[in-house]
């Protein structure tokens, strides 16, 4: 019954040998594969949450994992998010590497006490003797016409919490590589999955496929190699450009790439920076990009006030003040509750609003 808790040694190699070096996968599929590999490689890894077992998760990210790795290692919990996080913390104290899921972003709120006061502080409180290698998966952001509380953006909250690291992938490759990187870290990571991108496909170069890249950042990812671990620590250039930097993360990266194509038609060469890590923020990458373009727009779905856009804008301003041609623009959600499906296209930064932001920066005149 419990023989699968420690994965048999031979299994991973066998399986790895069967998969090709590169696959076309959806983000959902890439995350599922990453979890499969993590469970095979790390006998201490556990997946837990509401409906993650038999059902395989409401987004099927954990599909098949319980059957393959055992119902002890991939298990459903009762319906209580504080319980899921509190239990994960205790499992980490017992030497496990839990990968809990909260089913939707809006249901992370009941777990905030455990996340802020416990998950983020146990290593500190215990003077490093009780590390918290916990990766909390949070299907995040809007765009799927879902019920209330199923489309929240909590990155500003998470990024403010001492003791947490926060990351959000923007495509299948990022999802696969960043999830594996996060689960190998000895510290707690909040992993924000852009749910509107779950079914979006892309090429994914697998680890150990021999095609692993060595160069840093975008080059490695675009060049077809699987990102090496040093590629996964900072931001990445999703599209190089000269006139202006669009900074985004999660689902907004794809939208910004679309905007960049449209802007290119008007001769505006936009660089798109996929921030990836929302804590720590890659200030160097921001400074390098905006140092070159001298103009920046930050885009996020979360409400504007006290959103992470303010932080990103201020980091850019601190580093590039002397060369900035215009104040950094923010194109964001409004200071309103995430609206019902009918209105979500009015709420989420759309192409027009991002183009307006770009225009304001380009047309900015001092005084």
């Amino acid at each position, binding site marked *: 019954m419990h023989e699968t808790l420690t994965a048999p040694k031979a299994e991973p190699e066998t399986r790895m040998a069967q998969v090709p070096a590169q696959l076309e996968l959806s983000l959902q599929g890439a995350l599922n594969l990453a979890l499969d590999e993590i469970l095979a490689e790390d006998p201490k890894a556990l997946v837990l949450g*509401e409906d993650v077992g*038999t059902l395989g998760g*409401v987004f099927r990210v954990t599909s*098949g994992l319980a059957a393959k790795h055992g119902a002890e290692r991939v298990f459903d919990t009762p*319906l209580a998010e*504080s319980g899921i996080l509190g239990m994960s913390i205790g499992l980490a104290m017992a030497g496990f590497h839990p990968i809990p899921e909260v089913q939707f972003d809006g249901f992370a709120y*009941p777990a905030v006490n455990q996340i802020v006061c416990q998950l983020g502080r146990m290593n500190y409180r215990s003077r490093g003797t009780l590390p918290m290698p916990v990766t909390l998966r949070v299907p995040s952001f809007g765009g799927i016409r879902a019920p209330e509380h199923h489309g929240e953006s909590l990155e500003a909250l998470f990024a403010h919490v001492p003791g947490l690291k926060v990351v959000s992938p923007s495509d299948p490759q990022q999802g696969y590589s960043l999830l594996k990187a996060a689960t190998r870290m000895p510290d707690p990571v909040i992993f924000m999955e852009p749910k509107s991108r779950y079914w979006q496909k892309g090429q994914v170069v697998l680890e150990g496929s021999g095609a692993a890249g060595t160069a840093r950042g975008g080059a490695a990812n675009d060049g077809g190699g699987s990102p090496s671990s040093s590629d996964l620590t900072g931001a990445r250039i999703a599209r190089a450009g000269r006139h202006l930097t669009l900074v985004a993360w999660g689902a907004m990266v794809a939208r910004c790439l679309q905007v960049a194509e449209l802007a290119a038609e008007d001769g505006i060469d936009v660089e798109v920076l996929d921030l990836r890590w929302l804590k720590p923020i890659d200030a160097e990458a921001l400074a390098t990009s905006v140092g070159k373009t001298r103009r920046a727009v930050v885009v996020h779905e979360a409400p504007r006030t006290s959103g992470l856009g303010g932080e990103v804008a201020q980091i850019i301003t601190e580093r590039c003040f002397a060369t900035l041609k215009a104040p950094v623009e923010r194109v964001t959600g409004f200071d309103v509750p995430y609206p019902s499906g009918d209105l979500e296209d009015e709420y989420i930064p759309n192409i*027009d609003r991002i183009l307006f932001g770009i225009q304001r920066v380009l047309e900015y005149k001092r005084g």
Partner: protein
Amino acid sequence: MQTSGQSTTAHGRAGLADAPRPPLSDLPSVEPVTGSDLVELYRLMTAVRHLDLAAISWQRQGIVPAYAPELGQEAAQVGSALAVDPKRDFVFPTYRELGVARACGVDMVEYMSTHKATWHGGLWNPAETHVAPIQAVVAGSVLHAVGWAHGQTLEAHGELPAEGYNVAITYLGDGASSQGDVHEAMNFAAIFKAPVVFFVQNNGWAISVPTERQVAGGSVAARGAGYGIPAIQVDGNDAAAVLTATRRAVAHARAGQGPAIVEAMTYRRGPHATSDDPGRYRSLEDERLDAGADPVARLRERFVAEGIADAAALNEADDAAAAEAERVRRGVLALGGRPGAEMFDLVFQEPTDELLRQKANWQAETEWHEESEHA
């Protein structure tokens, strides 16, 4: 623990008889249900059954993007709702309480607007109907019911009014019972002796998780004893039994005796929501064995057996229900979207300058967009 795909069933094949029962409660007894109660139950349950099935087909036709069916829970919902008086009492539903809302007189087009993605919570007026907005957070409104109920005793300055206290009824599922808020609510309610009824629909499942892997001890009602709250477990597919049990609980709260719990043992016959695929976690055979008798058919059989109403009368109810579902369909189709300005205007009673500024920017950019589309 199971490994995948196959699940043990919620209630076991023996059905309700196996479920643990709390000790006999000290709730007051009430008048037995009358023939006209039964007719009213049937009329409403039939209407709800039609609307519920219709909503599923509307989802398939693309009229609404999603829906959470309540198939099989008509007796629990209508039976409990008929026990309260929405003129004075206050009802706190979840996202699956079509039957409750219908029985309490909520306009069904305004109700369906939530599922049409028009407005989170629905378009009806909760202050007037005394039915709170749809609550998408599991167990999110259980504490609100306790607060509202405590407000009734404050309003009465501790003197039990002649007509008793107004009562809050809050709905929750077996899954919801795991949330910490439910514990806090029950404890607060008992400490403050608040006139509130916790109505649990134990429908065997929380999405894919069966009750026995959710509710330790096996019964939410059994938790009542630990708080000193009287609790009653009832066959949730027997509308008359639900009505009686809930009336007893309401009478208890109304009389100033504090909170009560009713746990209706029922079965979620459909998927969790239209996006769900129950085949991944239970077989059709499981469903057949666990669901028990259909509550609507059961009531109909009782009518025939007891000669309360004849087939013609029952068919009339069916026809009325079908006609109503069609009217609602047309209403839902005709339902326009809400103006985007409401995103800003309805956040506060007194909007902030910053919000007005954001609204103005949004308007300017939207108008530009609309103009350019017309051009």
